[in-house]
């Protein structure tokens, strides 16, 4: 499997290097530096030279790299590299050159624990934090006692949870975070609309509680599957039940149970975690409609007319609406006019930011703007990146 693991900075200097197998030399890092970091035209996340394969992921200003000499499992390696990134974030806030440099020892210690002989081991952050710490060591007796527990937990069937959690007040919170992905043609027809949802849970529960989770009573995962069992589907539709195309669960959820009777049962980790992730393509109501008219009448000017319509019930409000409207790279100044909210040009990001503190359902408003462009000798066509819209919703209660 993974023969070597490296972290590079942007200049190609090795920050972390760990060899797990004898089939490679440390100098292999030079090859990566030459072939990938100093090569401006890399078009693949995996490079194979001879029989050596390099898998890399770029995060902030560092490259995280795994090297193998075999027919490795590519998906596993990338999942592992991303897991390393998330573990690093959890331990020291972010993963960048500075964080790596100030946490060398910790990173090596972590690497030894999460990767053995090139095979990923326990990567549960909660479990790792119990025995890989930056704190000074406690009394030897306590350590010995804890260690026994830790090791049982780290390898057990519920590796994500300590057995002896105690709270005076047992409580759990559930947050639903949804991202609407929308692809619309120039003519305004919806090509693709789906919702990626995340259910985040914060559980502060004592002992090893057995939890069950339901969505609108019936989680209609597969329409046809349920139809076969008798007219449930019609009722589900009438109830406006959640129809999910697919869902993924945290490893605490019993997949076999879900497969057999659609129930989500689990023993949660302590604290915050992502319980499930889902995807849905039905009953998607688009909260906003955006009509854009962007023209380039001359080479030195771009004219915008952005019309925003809140597409939801007039009784509801959307708060903190933020639109990010891209401008060409050679923009010198932008003159914007808005009916509500505030809009200004942010040269550093090449965007116009339009902020509306609150917009009511069915309300409409327009932004008009004119961008002045500097003349450049070598003018590449402007790629017209998409406009980004963020908002938060609150129920009227």
């Amino acid at each position, binding site marked *: 499997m993974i023969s070597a693991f490296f972290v590079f900075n942007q200049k190609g200097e090795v920050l972390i290097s760990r060899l797990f197998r004898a089939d490679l030399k440390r100098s292999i890092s030079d090859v990566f530096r030459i072939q990938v970091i100093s090569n401006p035209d890399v078009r*693949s996340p995996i490079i*194979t030279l001879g029989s050596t394969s390099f898998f890399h992921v770029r995060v902030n200003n560092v490259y995280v790299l795994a090297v193998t000499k075999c027919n490795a499992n590519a998906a596993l390696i990338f999942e592992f590299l991303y897991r390393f990134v998330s573990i690093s974030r959890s331990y020291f806030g972010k993963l960048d050159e500075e964080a790596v440099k100030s946490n060398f020892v910790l990173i090596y210690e972590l690497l030894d624990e999460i990767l053995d002989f090139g*095979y990923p081991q326990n990567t549960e952050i909660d479990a790792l934090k119990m025995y890989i710490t930056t704190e000074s060591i406690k009394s030897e007796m306590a350590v010995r006692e804890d260690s026994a527990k830790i090791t049982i937990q780290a390898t057990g069937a519920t590796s994500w949870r300590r057995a002896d959690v105690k709270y005076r007040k047992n409580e759990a919170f559930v947050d639903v975070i949804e991202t609407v992905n929308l*692809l619309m043609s120039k003519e305004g027809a919806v090509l693709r609309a789906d919702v990626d949802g995340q259910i985040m849970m914060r559980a502060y529960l004592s002992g090893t509680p057995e939890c069950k989770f339901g969505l609108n009573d019936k989680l209609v995962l597969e329409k046809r599957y349920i139809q076969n069992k008798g007219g449930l589907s019609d009722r589900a539709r009438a109830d406006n039940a959640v129809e999910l195309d697919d869902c993924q669960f945290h490893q605490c959820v019993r997949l076999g149970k879900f497969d057999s009777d659609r129930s989500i049962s689990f023993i949660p980790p302590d604290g915050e975690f992502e319980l499930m992730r889902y995807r849905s393509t039905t009953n998607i109501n688009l909260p906003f409609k955006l009509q854009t008219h962007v023209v380039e009448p001359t080479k030195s000017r771009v004219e915008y007319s952005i019309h925003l319509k809140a597409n939801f019930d007039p009784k509801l409000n959307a708060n903190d609406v933020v639109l990010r409207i891209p401008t060409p790279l050679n923009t010198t100044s932008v003159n914007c006019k808005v009916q509500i909210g505030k809009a200004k040009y942010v040269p550093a990001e090449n965007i116009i930011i339009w902020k509306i503190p609150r917009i009511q359902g069915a309300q409409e408003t327009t932004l008009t703007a004119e961008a002045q462009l500097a003349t450049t000798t070598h003018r590449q066509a402007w790629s017209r990146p998409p406009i980004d819209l963020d908002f938060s919703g609150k129920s009227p209660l």
Partner: protein
Amino acid sequence: MNGRAPPRKGENFELRAELNSEYRDRRADAIKRVIANMTVGKDVSGLFPDVLKNMDTADQNPLIRALAIRTMSTLRAEKILSYLGDPLSRCLRDENPYVRKTAALCVAKVYELKPELCVDHGFIDVLRDLVGDGNPMVVANAVTALSDIHEASILAAQNGFGGGTSRGEDDEESASPTIPAQKFIIDGPTLSRILLALNECSEWGRIALLNALAKYQASGPEESEHICERVMPQFQHANGAVVLGAVKVIMIHMRNVQRQELVAQLIKKMAPPLVTLISSAPEVQWVALRNINLLLQKRPDILANEMRVFFCKYNDPPYVKVEKLDVMVRLASERNVNTLLGELKEYASEVDVDFVRKAVKAIGQTAIKIESAAPRCVQVLLDLIQTRVSYVVQEAVVVIKDIFRKYPHSYEAVIPTLCPNLDELDEPEAKASLIWIIGEYAEKIENADELLAIFLDGFKEESYAVQLQTVTAIVKLFLKKPDHAQAIVQRVLQTATKDSDNPDVRDKAYVYWRLLSTDPAAAKAVVLSVRPPISLPNTTVAPAVLEELLGGISSLASVYHKPAATFIGKGRYGVDEMSKRRADFEDADTSTQKALETVVAGQKSENLLDFDADEPSIADTSIGTNTVPASFAPSSAAIASVAAAKSPLDELMDLFSNSNLSAPTNAPGLSVTSPTGPSMQAAAAASSPFDFDGLAGFGGTSTTKPSGAPKAQSEDLLGLF
């Protein structure tokens, strides 16, 4: 370690005394000091054995026991290995699962260095027992270690010595040929243990277990069904590698499932998780897309309703976009073709040149795949030509040529739109395509002779592909309109035979000349013969290779769409290996060999890049020269036959251009994209100089290699033809 006697005084001497102290805390302090000294760069290597003694695999703290055994097995030194036997066998039977799971992997590490040690101590049998352990992580690591040992011992057997695979300094001792291969074959009871542990294991453990299940030979349809049913829930796992692992197991065991409704259910359940993978991290997405491409080659219906999911997002990395295009074309059907064309047309107006070209190509592939959509595709292509963006126009011309080859005489009306763009074409492929079209429809184009004359004027400056096409096109013109083209045909044959420095162009011109002068009727029969229409292949790899790759879903081989032996190992992928492989597959046919041999050609050149800091480059070269004639000789025929079927230039260029495998993105329709057209077939088999050029060019650019190697390689190739 140094052979000098240890000094009698100094810091290291004191440290040694401390390390051997009877008091635990003093030893601990000493170790801290040793590490501190090491950190600041002092030489503490003399203390190595003393530090080692302090690794206590009998400590009360299980974390320490595990750490000790892990560290000891990581040190790659012969001396330590001999100390390791007892502690390791103790740890393998430790009461604590954490220690056991760590020790299990240690066996694989030791086997890599000194296999006979594992056999002597019976570690491998202990591992087999551990597969039945009560703790799922221990089971997973035992399976992992056994699989690792299995691979290593097979590799060792292939390499002709029984030792480990390491090329480290301890190699010479381990080369005892008496060690039997340590195969890991799952039996019935083991299977049920693995299936049981699967649901309780950590994500990485699940992947290891799924890998093992993929290798299991089911005893019958019932067992296959059972495995599929037990593995299916893993589709819902959050880790993409687990999902792909489950897909792999199911694709393998589904072959034996006889209940059709179960197969249908499996296929239906497979689709949503595959779609979900398309919203993961870009690298995982790319791996998923490459594998989905393979899955669709086997089961085109799997994602029939999901094409929209593969629409490119603005911020997708280029490598993801290109793969999505491929998958979209695979999913194109009469129902969704309008949406697809709208989408592809949008892509063709983006700024990334490479992506735009691929999008235009995809339009052509759609036209060839779906006959009823061809008129709309042609219309979109014509719209794109109107944009007059140079690379769009050139790619569109190439694509339209392919459409002509699929639907002859259906779209002649577009020819007048194409011809005015003649001056703007500067790429050989586009030029050659347009010339082919003019030649093919010479009787319908009034000023065909004038158009072709333009190319004839600059004949010597043109690339060989364009020269060859010009010769053929003008001969066609002459055969169709003998009265008008007498002068021009003589001029072209004269120029080609006298001025061209390319033997193919000269030969081709001579052949035509002789044909025309001896028997014009025969010339007509040969040059104007009706050619079979091209089609879009359903698979990009041979059926047997496809099965092999599907059995390794999410592995590097399946990402590259090439058998693993073509890029790992040291070029030991000769005829024997191929015929052995062929025997492994029940449904193997000659196409396997053909395909494998074709990839060998690519792999040969890749091996030139095989950097191995240790081995002198001369050794590499000699390996190359020794093995090449043996494994290459039969494949030359295959290459030639492939070349005749497709286009040799493209085929080989493609192989070489992909040879550092940065992005194996050959379009699915290789045969479609050939620039030269079927009229080149006569010359195809003999176009070795092209191949040679391709290789020499490649050798020249490979900076990591001494110049000797490419030279030897190209000489071999020269000898072949």
